[in-house]
């Protein structure tokens, strides 16, 4: 309770909202990354074969735009994350190129979790 009150008065307090900003941002990027990769898996492995083999186009008609929005959301969240600073050029390149690699979003999960862990340890130090 005392910690919360202190955090409210001083947004930079170690246990206040600021300490959590980067961790939450990385979590958001991870979630969007999973959604982007999963909608592509569903589109390519289920909706497209169903369309071509059984002539049922509604799956891809529905999933196409959903994946499009998920792709844009990933690119935007990656930009927002990188604009927060602390990223090397190679990491930025990796973050954006993943969006163009099929199922690449899944490769982000472990990497982003490790980064969040490293960040938390740095903050604690």
């Amino acid at each position, binding site marked *: 309770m005392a910690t919360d009150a202190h955090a409210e008065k001083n947004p*930079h307090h170690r246990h206040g*909202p600021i300490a959590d900003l980067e961790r939450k*941002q990385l979590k958001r990027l991870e979630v969007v990354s999973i959604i982007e990769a999963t909608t592509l898996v569903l589109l390519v492995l289920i909706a497209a074969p169903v369309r071509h083999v059984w002539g049922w186009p509604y799956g891809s008609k529905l999933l196409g735009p959903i994946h*499009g929005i998920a792709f844009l959301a990933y690119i*935007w969240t990656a*930009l927002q994350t990188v*604009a*927060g600073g602390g990223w090397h050029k190679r990491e930025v390149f990796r973050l954006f190129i993943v969006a163009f690699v099929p199922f690449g979003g899944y490769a982000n999960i472990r990497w982003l979790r490790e980064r969040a862990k490293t960040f938390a340890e740095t903050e604690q130090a």
Partner: protein
Amino acid sequence: MMVAAIYPYLVAAHVTAVVFLVGGLLAQERIVNAISQSPPEAQAGVLVALQRLERTVTTPALLLTWILGLSLALSAGWLSSGWLIVKLIFVVALSALHGVRSGRIRRSLRTRTAIEKIPGADLGVLVAMLVIAVLAIVKPA
């Protein structure tokens, strides 16, 4: 028939989302310009408020703007129209500005450094909105 029935409501929802997005973006830029010369410790409270505005208003408005806008473009078959492609360039620029601005607010809060102005960003938001409004309403060939 179905799309035609909901079309005006989609437009109304899209315009509402755009109003919240552009209003929020303009407010963010003007407020950042106003406080950018203050010391970092004096900026913290305002930056926290701007960060909450971003999280609760402008980012949801951005998402809705894109979802509703692309739904309208798909339903009306405008995706290959020249005016829409030009409009999308300005929409992407505004979206990118929002991403960069919200990232920089987070960085300033985390590193306890003063927020930096993006020169011409507030004027850019106004010009982009004007161009977007003209293209959306006139729809030149």
